[in-house]
């Protein structure tokens, strides 16, 4: 029996250690989440306005004016997968990978597919799989910086402009709230050409007056748009990751507590049982002597 007791004590101790770690991770994630949340909320208006300007622009001008507007048959498709660099954040990474795999299975049958991977989890998953990976970016999700977004964007734009790609999609976790992340899969290139829903008085669908030659203007605008959308996706993903980790670690801490309670209870029962047995032995021994 005492051996068994020691075994339980050890287990309680090790669960306690794990609990300490998960609790610390939860607190760290919570503090990082705050900062990431502020950043993404501040960055959203710019990305949204940029998108609305782009949409408004894309229906006014002739797509032949710029390579990034070219609508080609979707033969060669690229998917940009934004995952985290680290695990221990619940289903955060697996959701992204599942949704990426669904997309790939739908697309890959009759199209050429390539990937750009952001975040180590995605890189590790696709390492052993047969898809062509054009770019990999690891260890950048811990400190999301506009520089990286520019680099990723440049790679994509180069391929697209050179007509090596016909369409680019982006899949990432969107930060909805601390406890909720939604997987978003959205087209990045070519820039969608929205038709006017109705001809309104205030917004006739006529071409712009340009202050610069349109080509120059678009050269400036379109790459910036791609960068901004990638940057936003990265910030969304960062905030979502911390949120997911916080929730996962909170659950883990609670589970650990439950486990400790269970183990302590069993441990005490065993101890009590052995004490009872000993007392009975002593009492019956004493009885035997007296008798």
């Amino acid at each position: 029996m005492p051996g068994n007791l020691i075994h339980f004590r050890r287990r309680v101790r090790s669960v306690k250690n794990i609990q300490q770690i998960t609790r610390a991770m939860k607190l760290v994630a919570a503090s990082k989440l705050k900062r990431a949340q502020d950043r993404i909320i501040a960055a959203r208006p710019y990305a949204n306005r940029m998108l609305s300007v782009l949409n408004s622009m894309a229906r006014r001008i002739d797509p032949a004016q710029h390579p990034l507007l070219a609508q080609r048959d979707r033969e060669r498709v690229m998917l940009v997968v934004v995952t985290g660099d680290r695990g221990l954040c619940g289903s955060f990474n697996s959701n992204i990978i599942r949704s990426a795999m669904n997309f790939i299975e739908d697309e890959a049958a009759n199209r050429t597919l390539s990937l750009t991977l952001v975040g180590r989890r995605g890189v590790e998953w696709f390492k052993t799989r047969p898809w062509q990976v054009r770019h990999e970016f690891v260890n950048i999700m811990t400190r999301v910086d506009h520089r990286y977004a520019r680099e990723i964007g440049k790679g994509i734009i180069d391929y697209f402009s050179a007509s090596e790609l016909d369409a680019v999609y982006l899949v990432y976790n969107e930060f909805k709230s601390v406890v909720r992340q939604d997987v978003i899969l959205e087209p990045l290139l070519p820039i969608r050409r929205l038709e006017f829903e109705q001809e309104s008085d205030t917004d006739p669908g006529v071409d712009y007056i340009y202050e610069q030659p349109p080509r120059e203007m678009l050269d400036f605008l379109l790459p910036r748009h791609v960068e901004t959308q990638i940057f936003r996706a990265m910030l969304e993903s960062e905030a979502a990751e911390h949120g997911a980790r916080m929730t996962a670690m909170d659950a883990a801490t609670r589970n650990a507590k439950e486990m400790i309670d269970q183990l302590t209870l069993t441990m005490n029962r065993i101890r009590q049982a052995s004490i009872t047995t000993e007392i009975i032995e002593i009492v019956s021994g004493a009885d035997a002597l007296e008798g």
Partner: protein
Amino acid sequence: MALPEAIQLEIVAPDRLVFSGEVQEVTIPGAEGYLGILPGHAPLLSELKTGIISYPDGEDRVELFCSSGFAEVLPGRVIVLAEEVESPEMIDGSQAQADKEKAEQMLRSRDPGTDYQAALTLLEQASARLQLVD
């Protein structure tokens, strides 16, 4: 065609929404010179250079420093997307003065390694900032 009576103006920087509201008029620093925009302006797309955005606010005018970006003008809406936007309170006058002097010195130097483009940009930004602070 009924013309809108006011402009829905939005000024956005990468890290925040600076202003969103209705104005009667707005002046923006277009790449080819300042543009004054009234409600009902024809659609226009322009790159912005470093300069000052201003719009009326009651009796006064609000003036903001902005560096490169672009603006979309529609009859009833103007969206300004600028890399940097600063209100006069945010500008450090002495820093701007120092930048200006540094830029001028760079431009005067005969060192062939001088990055004239960078110096000009710096000078432009510093001058626009100083204009707001004074």
